[in-house]
């Protein structure tokens, strides 16, 4: 009985672990196209810090572009929007949209929307160029509340208490 229970506990743990990197609350499969994987490297232009899902905007350089960077089809750059989760969870950890400065370089892998005329994708993984996850590793921007340093005083749940 003890062995059976132990393996059950292990199985429950594994199930939790298996679902960790793959989470979403609405029809992600209906929104994004599994046949259109994307890897986006660019600089943050703005963050829509809104519910139910935050959207990170970034500017991608297109070397083949001919026109000035005005987001026209032939331009030297393109703006993409990347879907994340609810901002409330991060707010409670003291992270705001100001925590990531405009111009911060990020790397995103995900899938483009099923409507390919939109430059939108899910943020399957959103990291800094060295692979650290956003909101967990320092952006190097000197932002006071980027939650960068695990030893930093007040880091963790409830850091934003009282100050808002």
């Amino acid at each position, binding site marked *: 009985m003890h062995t059976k229970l132990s393996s059950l506990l292990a199985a429950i743990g594994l199930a939790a672990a298996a679902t960790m990197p793959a989470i979403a609350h609405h029809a992600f499969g*209906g929104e994004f196209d599994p046949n259109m994987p994307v890897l986006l490297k660019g600089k943050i232009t703005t963050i829509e810090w809104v*519910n139910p899902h935050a959207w990170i905007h970034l500017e991608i350089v297109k070397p083949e572009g001919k026109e000035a960077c005005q987001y026209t089809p032939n331009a030297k750059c393109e703006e993409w929007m990347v879907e994340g989760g609810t901002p409330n969870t991060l707010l409670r950890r003291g992270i705001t949209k100001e925590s990531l400065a405009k111009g911060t370089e990020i790397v995103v892998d995900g899938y483009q929307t099923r409507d390919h005329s939109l430059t939108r994708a899910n943020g399957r993984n959103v990291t800094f160029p060295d692979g650290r996850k956003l909101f967990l590793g320092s952006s190097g921007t000197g932002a006071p509340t980027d939650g960068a340093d695990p030893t930093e005083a007040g880091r963790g749940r409830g850091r934003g208490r009282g100050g808002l």
Partner: protein
Amino acid sequence: MPDGKPDLQGTYDLATLTPVERPNGLPAVLTDEQAVKLEKQAVAAQERGSLPIDGNRSAPPKGGDGSLGPAGNVGGYNSFWIDRGSQYSVVDGQKRSSIVIDPPDGRVPSLTADARQRQASRAALARLQSDATESRDPGLEGAGAYDDPERRPLGERCLLGFGSTSGPPILPNYFYNNLHQIVQTSDTVMILTEMVHDARIIRLNAQHAPPTVRKWLGDSIGHWEGDTLVVETTNFTDKTRFRGATENLTVTERFTRTDAKTLKYRFTIDDPKTWEKPWTGEYTWPITQDHLYEYACHEGNYAMGNILRGARLRESEDTKTKSKQQ
């Protein structure tokens, strides 16, 4: 409180590892050893999700990344957005393995034949139950599921939070934003649910609204039995449908302040057309000093447009393929 009643007010974080139904093989009450082991696994899983990955990675595989259920083969989003709880609920000093306590096996009773028939008859078109998680959507539902916004789940439409967060019964969603605030006066108690900005007004020592008045969250009236606030909710719309219930669902909730930091929440579900007998669950709500934030769900709900546009394009492609074949 000035009226001599217990003070239920505060902000509570309902996130917990205790599931609604007991997993097969687990005892009703976990030993300290079992609970510690499972709680450590949950923390470890969260930490694994926080680890850096390769900054020079390539795009994910064409055809999908194989992620199941929630992530619809495209991978969802990073776990740093998530706050799903890391501890089992403690009731009367016991670490509970399920919220359901009656039936004693910790499982919601089977649906009646009538309820099964109702579910089957609308399964192809509508998934509008208040507790429906959007997370089981593989992206390719049956015909009609994407025809218009009203066919989409309530959570996706920003009408109610998924997982019965607003209730009643109020349940954790095992995902994020499980905060609730209670405000109390001598004749009214209000429960504010962070996701999706629902405020339920409970009138004390009052009568139910006439049967013609139907509400998304039902009509709640309450009274004190000793130190426990007892709330009865009826008059649901036929749109809420908690776990497939009819609009004749009655939910009886019992709120008891057990100490300065804890509220005990117990609920009984009764709908004879859906379950053969009533069933009961309970768990505790720990008070939190965290802030509850506004949840303006429609503001950023680009997903709805993206999902419907995706469906229109798929239909258009299907039509082209068929006409080529003819």
